[in-house]
């Protein structure tokens, strides 16, 4: 290195080949390739067993399964990118379905108030999470775990089973479809697009990446990091609210187990990380998260079709998540020098 003068000027735009390679190293691209691979593999394995994987009901089912986890994972992506975390999403989703169903009480006329009530509840909880993290300086893990316990206490004290009644028209959100595509998927895609836009094209989005990447550096650059974290928590909780509305539409009633049975808290974090977002924040995005959710949904569908033993199924999911993150860690190490 002795003789190496400052390296010669790089071309102002990376060569296409380098760009292509960088693209492949990007987890957001990798996870979608993995989703494609898992689908093909599933198709092949099921075909060998004499079944058919890519049937319309099956595709609809997979997409349907993506929606609730997808919405919550999108919200989780916002907080994780910002360097925080939300463990209260599962109980909040449960409470959201209950509030939605009870407010509607079976009447179409109450749909709007129900939606407003759920979103207001979630915004409030998100705000509380954010304030506890930023003002009281409680570690996000503990802060949102505490809020989760509070929500759980409220739910268990007031509900012993399904409650309320979701109006017929609203249930169409859970069951209607256009061709093989459930309408709820458009909701998911819409939310994803909105959040993608926020991250890429608004100052808030840039500041979220900065805060998650290095809070101190962001603060020194004039970013209001506390407000950024606060907004990320509210956005996350609003996503959970939308997921709760969808779940209520699916169940036709509010359920105290809507969020916890599917373990949306840890599942959403798994999906986010599977999608290549760094758990420490600052790197990742919604495209990867949707990929992570898709991989999990396709895997589930394959396992169900093959009637795989539940134990083995969970082990495989665990292996997939660990393997993916190990691959990303390798990619990061070789991609660039550490500082």
């Amino acid at each position, binding site marked *: 290195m002795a003789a*190496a003068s400052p390296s010669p000027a790089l071309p102002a735009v990376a060569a296409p080949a380098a760009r292509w390679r960088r693209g492949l190293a990007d987890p957001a691209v990798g996870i979608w390739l993995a989703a494609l691979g898992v689908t093909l593999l599933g198709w092949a394995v099921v075909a060998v067993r004499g079944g058919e994987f890519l049937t319309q009901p099956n595709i609809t089912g997979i997409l349907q399964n993506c929606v609730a986890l997808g919405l919550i994972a999108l919200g989780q992506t916002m907080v994780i990118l910002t360097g925080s975390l939300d463990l209260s999403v599962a109980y909040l989703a449960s409470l959201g379905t209950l509030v939605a169903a009870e407010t509607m009480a079976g009447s179409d006329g109450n749909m709007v108030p129900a939606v407003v009530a759920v979103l207001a509840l979630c915004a409030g909880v998100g705000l509380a999470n954010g304030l506890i993290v930023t003002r009281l300086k409680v570690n996000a893990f503990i802060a949102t775990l505490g809020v989760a316990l509070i929500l759980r206490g409220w739910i268990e004290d007031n509900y012993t089973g399904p409650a309320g009644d979701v109006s017929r028209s609203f249930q169409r959100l859970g069951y209607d479809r256009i061709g093989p595509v459930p309408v709820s998927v458009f909701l998911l895609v819409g939310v994803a697009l909105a959040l993608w836009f926020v991250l890429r094209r608004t100052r808030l989005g840039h500041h979220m990446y*900065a805060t998650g990447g290095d809070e101190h550096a*962001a*603060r020194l650059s004039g970013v209001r990091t506390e407000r950024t974290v606060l907004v990320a928590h509210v956005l996350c909780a609003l996503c959970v609210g939308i997921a709760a509305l969808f779940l209520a539409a699916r169940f036709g009633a509010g359920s105290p187990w809507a969020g916890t049975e599917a373990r949306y808290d840890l599942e959403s974090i798994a999906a986010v990380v599977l999608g290549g977002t760094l758990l420490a924040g600052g790197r990742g995005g919604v495209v990867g998260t949707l990929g992570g959710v898709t991989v999990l949904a396709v895997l589930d569908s394959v396992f169900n079709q093959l009637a795989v033993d539940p134990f083995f199924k969970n082990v495989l999911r665990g292996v997939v998540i660990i393997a993916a993150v190990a691959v990303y860690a390798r990619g990061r190490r070789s*991609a*660039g*020098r550490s500082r």
Partner: protein
Amino acid sequence: MLLMQDMTKSFLGIRVLHSVSLDLAPGEVHAVVGENGAGKSTLMKLLSGEHTPDGGRIEIDGTPVAFGHPAQAQAAGVGIIHQELALLPDRTVAENVFLGREPTRRGLVDRAAMARRTTELLAELHADGIAPDTPVRALSVARQQTVEVAKALAADVRILIMDEPTAALAEHEVASLFDLVRRLTERGLGILYVSHRMREIFALSRRVTVLKDGRLVTCLNTAETDVDAVVRAMVGHELSAYYPPRAAPGTLGAPVLTVSGGGNDRLADIELTVRAGEVLGVAGLQGSGRSALARAVFGADPFTRGRMTLAGREVRPRRPREAIRAGIALVGEDRKAEGLALRQSVRDNTLLVTRAVGVGERTGETTVTRLLDRVRLATSGGPGQEVRYLSGGNQQKVVIAKWLAARPRVLLFDEPTRGVDVGAKAAIHTLVRELAAEGLAVLLISSELPELIGMSDRVLVLADGRPAGELPAGPSEEEIMRLATGGADRAGAA
């Protein structure tokens, strides 16, 4: 343009600044020097809005200002470039340059404008080779620094604080930093330049302010003073003997460490011998294999070829644990990352190696007290204090104490005085020499040639991972550089 008058600041009831005043003119480089703990950083952080002053006033262009947040200082035209760069490695150059002030059009971030203006700013800094869409992590440290400067310019900064800007730079990069600084002053920026390095201060600054123990000692016109006067003001007493005397001839013991034909993927044909009581200096340019040599001896990146002996017995450490067992210790170049558990106490750090490897001293309180006395650690906090609160010099003493606890026979020092102040530097030099006199074999790697020359009984020069030559005690900087840059080879071939 800037006036800071009678600034005072206390932390936890301890006053760290006693009415310090400072002023800065447009286009001026004003150096701020002082030992660690002299209050330089605190003073700078009062100006950059990271701390709020307890007393005193700050005026910019005659208007009194008060900052409660870095954003406010920036709005007033004050920027700071920290020693640890405040860039986001995963974001692009443009995103970093405009962080916190992204240009918007109709409420949305205007990425095209951001890229265009970044290109313009970098061109003004003669750094057109940096593409605005490159992730910062792909750039060298020097280029990252340039991005930091562009970031300050994007913020319309007129007063720029540079904190130890050359600490992480290689020699050839320092020259381009100097160019950069001059270009900034031509634009009329005022620069507060915090540094330990006299050469830079005299090359760049018009005035130099010296702080000691939180007080202003003096403010000198650089042209009318010299290095000795500045150093004297910094430490408060003459440092006539910069370096302790070398080993007297005939006092050296038997060879302790020998390497013959040593090589791995970074090194080749390494031949060296270090005797008991001897300090062998290792010189070389960045990337010449200086640190690789230390890491090979220490088993971190072991030799794959050749022989190594320790006190006459062949050893082949494949990992640090084995090297430590054999009696080898490495005081690494990055003490915060490699030398210390920052959030643990001085006591726990001192006992880290003995506890982990189970060699050397017993792990009791008396051992800790004795070792800390041995390295002359003088802190108010005692052994229970977390090491992250110590100054750089005191942290280094803890690292040395930690290794002494393992009772090594060979001590490898890689840049032992990097980032420590002048006073602590002299203390570490004395300590190194004393340890050698007690019979240890010392290998000293340093990129600071005066230190290497002043401390070493012999100097081994490396170039491209191979020995380029060996020089007896007291070589000149020119002799070392000629070997290190391969000048001798060319002369020989011609």
